[in-house]
């Protein structure tokens, strides 16, 4: 456990030791704000809530989180430090979880820094802060889902560009899995229960309810099990392709 902590600390400090933290946080906040006010019509809606803010999170994460996740393992591979890491007395799991938690926590920090919006909406009206909290929790969980996917894809390659592009595509599949774009691809040649299964994987559907204040245990379990699944896959791929 303590080794997870050591890795977590090193990784998290690493974000702030490089321009990654500044660039990511600034761009995240700018885009989140721009989407909320311009595309989301925050003011014109005349409602004291953060729905227009949360609605764009899946799309923001779709691009920004793979950019963060692509280096997780690809960089270790390219720099040869993966050999250093795995010849230390540490298990594969501890390394995978430690690095993931640091990256996830970093997105949490970026998310938390959007608090001026919450302040704004509280100044302008009387929003249901419970709903807003639920939105933040849901958004954070979804960020974890994207990050776990990115971690797994990053473990497959030493090329960060490939890691980024593939993560975006896989992420897009998960965002849209309840929509015709994805479902049409499978319909006709797969049984109905499989189609239902795929559409139940949609980030949008699960996030939709949470962002409206309904924290259903099933949505939480969905995101958490998604994270565990992709981290498990990360560990498997690392074990399998360590030498390459």
């Amino acid at each position, binding site marked *: 456990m303590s080794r997870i902590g050591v*890795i977590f600390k090193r990784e998290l400090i690493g974000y702030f030791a490089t321009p990654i933290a500044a660039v990511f946080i600034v761009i995240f906040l700018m885009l989140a704000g721009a989407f909320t006010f311009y595309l989301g019509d925050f003011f014109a809606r005349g409602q004291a809530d953060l729905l227009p803010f949360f609605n764009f999170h899946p799309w923001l994460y779709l691009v920004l989180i793979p950019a963060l996740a692509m280096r997780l393992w690809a960089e270790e591979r390219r720099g*040869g430090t993966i050999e*250093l890491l795995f010849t*230390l*007395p540490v298990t594969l799991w501890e390394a995978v979880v430690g690095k993931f938690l640091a990256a996830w926590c970093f997105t949490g920090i970026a998310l938390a820094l959007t608090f001026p919006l919450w302040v704004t909406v509280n100044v302008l009206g009387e929003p249901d802060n419970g709903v807003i909290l639920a939105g933040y929790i849901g958004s954070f969980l979804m960020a974890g889902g994207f990050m776990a996917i990115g971690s797994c894809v990053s473990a497959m390659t030493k090329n960060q560009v490939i890691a980024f592009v593939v993560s975006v595509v896989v992420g897009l599949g998960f965002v849209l899995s309840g929509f015709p774009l994805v479902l049409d691809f499978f319909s006709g040649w797969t049984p109905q229960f499989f189609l239902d299964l795929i559409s139940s994987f949609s980030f949008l559907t699960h996030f939709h309810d949470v962002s409206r204040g309904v924290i259903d245990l099933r949505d939480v379990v969905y995101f958490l099990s998604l994270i565990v699944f992709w981290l498990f896959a990360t560990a498997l791929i690392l074990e399998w392709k360590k030498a390459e």
Partner: protein
Amino acid sequence: MVEIRQLRKTFGPIVAVDHVSFTVSRGDVLGFLGPNGAGKSTTMKMITGFLTPTKGTVTVNGFDIQQQPLDAKKNLGYLPEGAPAYGDMTPLSFLLFIGAMRGFRGDDLRRRVRETVKKVNLDGVLHQPVETLSKGFKRRVGLAQAILHDPSVLILDEPTDGLDPNQKHEVRSLIRDMAKQKAIILSTHVLEEVQAVCTRAMIIAKGKVITDGTPAELEAQSRYYNSIILRLKGEAAGVQAMLQRLPGVKTVDVLEGPSGTRGFRVIPERGQTIIGAVSQGVHDHPWDVIELSVDRGHLDEVFRSLTMPAQALT
């Protein structure tokens, strides 16, 4: 301390390491020699637990690297090829991280880092990012992380590669200083390094151990081992034929040399010492001798003849 049994690694159809077995004990410095692609690094990666062997076992201080990896790795220090380190960290934060990963905390951790930094002379660059350091310093950072926890087994993959002669000398003295308390395996291309630091040398080629012995034994396999170099002024007519007749002499080669001199290499039959006979010959003839020396044999010649058998005689 380190026991390697029937180690084998295949990558698809390629056999990288083929049934390698050996033991290294405390006090041994084993030099791992071999051409590029011979399987040196792959063997080291299996010993340190980074790669899983296709077959065979490695035990470190009694711990099987596959069955009890954490215990085995605690007893191991490893410098991977190219001395990788996290480039955005400073040597200080990097060593603190490695120490913390190895379970040291607080004062103990800081004391160990301080001592190791002193050992490898990293003082001046402790606060510069590793990626901005010169090759020599990077190598020292890698060495520092390998010895930070004072492991009883040290695996060094090309520890002096790319260093200048002074830095090489420093690293070698460091290895010699540690040699008594540890079992050390190092790989190298530099044959003089084997003579300088190793108590044992092993040549591998195409994944197989070809020879294993002390550097002196290895030298003794050289054709030139105990051969005599004799250089004379003038034409030296008939000298070659005369040398050839001495007891124990196998062949006499004529050497290149400055004009006006004649050089000969007198090669003995295997196991024979001929310096007495040759010096007697020098004594008995009115030769104008400018050089008379005994050759200890050439590791690089042994290396070539063992790893490229077909071309050994040319």
